């Protein structure tokens, strides 16, 4: 299946600072990809390059187009939410809907209105009158109406409480996503999206340190919980990451024979949050 997004040697400098450092990746259709990393890792810069918002070096193809020169055309196929702060505060909800109808050729107003009918948002509200949670709902309602092939979300739930965060991702999964659509999400709060992802890309210091489908993680990474007295021996197998628990040690191994680890304790597939920390700290130490 042809990739929607292909990056080869994608690099971005801000002055002398290298925000994205020769990264290669592909995003295939029908996937929910999490681009995660700590603050300043290069997530938003990568997204901005995909969306044609910044200059970059290297090759980047999105829907067969060059985003540097074809941003407006790309936006027919891509729907983008940066965060709740990007909606203009002065605009009224009805004006916003009017704008979407006029500018997006494939916008379905009914879908947005159906979604909004289940919220407390009125068409006469101005954005500045809405709470952060309501703004997110409105943004999601807008996204529902756009018949885009790919949805790009950059920290979409930043500053929201846990109720709205959970609701946002539940609605996204249940009401927006289907096998024809692709979602690319960046966040540094991996624990709240790990249950919806099909693929993970972990970026740190401008480099992609892990890039694979979620269901392949178990083939490459193994988590071991071992008693403290056995930890020393397990450590000889060169874990990628280790952290102390109450009376145990938790270790994550990369490309290690899982059968050898069974003698030290409980072996399992690592949680994304632990893998994220392992990948970031691992690349930090490298």
């Amino acid at each position, binding site marked *: 299946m042809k990739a929607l997004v292909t990056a080869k040697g994608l690099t971005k400098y801000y002055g002398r600072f290298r925000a994205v450092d020769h990264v290669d990746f592909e995003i295939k259709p029908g996937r929910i990809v999490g681009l995660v990393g700590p603050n300043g890792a290069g997530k938003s810069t990568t997204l*901005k390059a995909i969306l044609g918002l*910044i200059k970059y070096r290297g090759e980047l193809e999105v829907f067969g187009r060059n985003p540097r020169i074809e941003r*407006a055309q790309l936006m027919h196929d*891509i729907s*983008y939410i940066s965060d709740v702060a*990007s909606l*203009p*505060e002065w605009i009224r909800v009805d004006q916003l809907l*009017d704008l979407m109808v*006029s500018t997006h050729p494939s916008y379905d107003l009914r879908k947005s209105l159906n979604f909004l009918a289940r919220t407390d948002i009125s068409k006469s509200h101005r954005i500045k009158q809405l709470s952060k949670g309501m703004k997110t709902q409105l943004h999601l309602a807008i996204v529902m109406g756009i018949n885009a092939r790919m949805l790009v979300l950059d920290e979409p739930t930043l500053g929201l409480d846990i109720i709205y965060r959970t609701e946002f991702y539940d609605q996204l999964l249940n009401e927006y996503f289907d096998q024809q659509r692709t979602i690319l999400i960046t966040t540094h709060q991996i624990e709240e999206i790990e249950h919806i992802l099909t693929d993970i890309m972990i970026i740190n210091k401008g480099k992609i340190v892990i890039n694979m489908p979620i269901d392949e993680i178990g083939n490459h990474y193994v988590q071991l919980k071992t008693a403290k007295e056995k930890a020393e021996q397990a450590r000889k197998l060169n874990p990628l990451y280790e952290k102390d628990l109450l009376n145990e040690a938790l270790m994550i191994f990369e490309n290690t024979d899982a059968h050898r680890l069974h003698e030290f304790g409980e072996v399992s597939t690592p949680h994304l949050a632990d893998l994220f920390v392992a990948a970031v700290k691992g690349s930090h130490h490298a």
Partner: protein
Amino acid sequence: MHSFTTLLRRELWEHTSLKGVPITLLAFVLLANLAFIFLLSNSTGTLSIVNGEEVRSLSSYLGFFTQLKPGQQTAIINSTMITTGMIINSVLLIVMFFYLLDSLYGERKDRTILFWKSLPVSNKQTVLSKLTIAVIIIPVIIFITTALANFMTLAIQSLVFYKNQYAADLLWQQTDVSGLSMFSIFLLIQQTIWYFPVMGWLLFCSVWCRKPPIIVAVLIPVILVFIDSSFMLGTGISEILLERLPLGIMSMQLGNESSLMAYNYSLNEQQLPGFNMSAGISVPSIDDILSFFMNVKVWMGLLIGFFFTGMAISLRRWRDDSL
């Protein structure tokens, strides 16, 4: 095209001053009219000396007006209306100045640029929609506001005439509606063409600057003029910049060689005693229009305006939410 008109509507939604200022100006004209009538109606002393006679009351003022020759009556009406138009024009040119400076800087300042760029709208469409507001919509607003203000003045004045047993239709008969309209339309076109390079420069500064663009937009021309005149370089840049800077219709009427209009401010046979102005309105001839468009400064200005607009389109491509 549909999306372009929506972009224009979006500018009007966002920049409420484009509606608010004309409404405020109309309210001001209404109040000024009412205050004028109130003062004349309640005066006890001498308010003015017109034609050697004291004006002590509203009826003496109206009496003076009705005794004038028709041409002189038209002259007074034209003078009043043109003065109102000049005030409205000058205020809305200031609104335009700040609108253009904010139009592409504001979206970065409040980070909404990420939302606007998420729409399938090109940078060219976005920048041109903002330029269209300055080139077409604001002149139309100036024309409509001036027309409404003058209509309101005429309506109030004719009501006063009627209440004081004078022929109210005298005012309407002596008002040169078509002459004034043509005068305003041609002047607004000329003004827009003349200020086009300034508009392009302001748009460019709005997208270029990472700090409030007013500083750069004003400072660079000031520095250029200062260097040119201080060191007597004789580049001519001072003259080029200075003749584009003054605001309002007045600047183009007072000896500006590129003036399309010939609104004669010099005293002539229609000079009215007590009113230090004349009232001749002449609509430009084909020769006047041709000579305006044959002026190399007009074409240079248009080229510079298009150059800065092109630069603004090109620069916006790489602008994101970082200032």
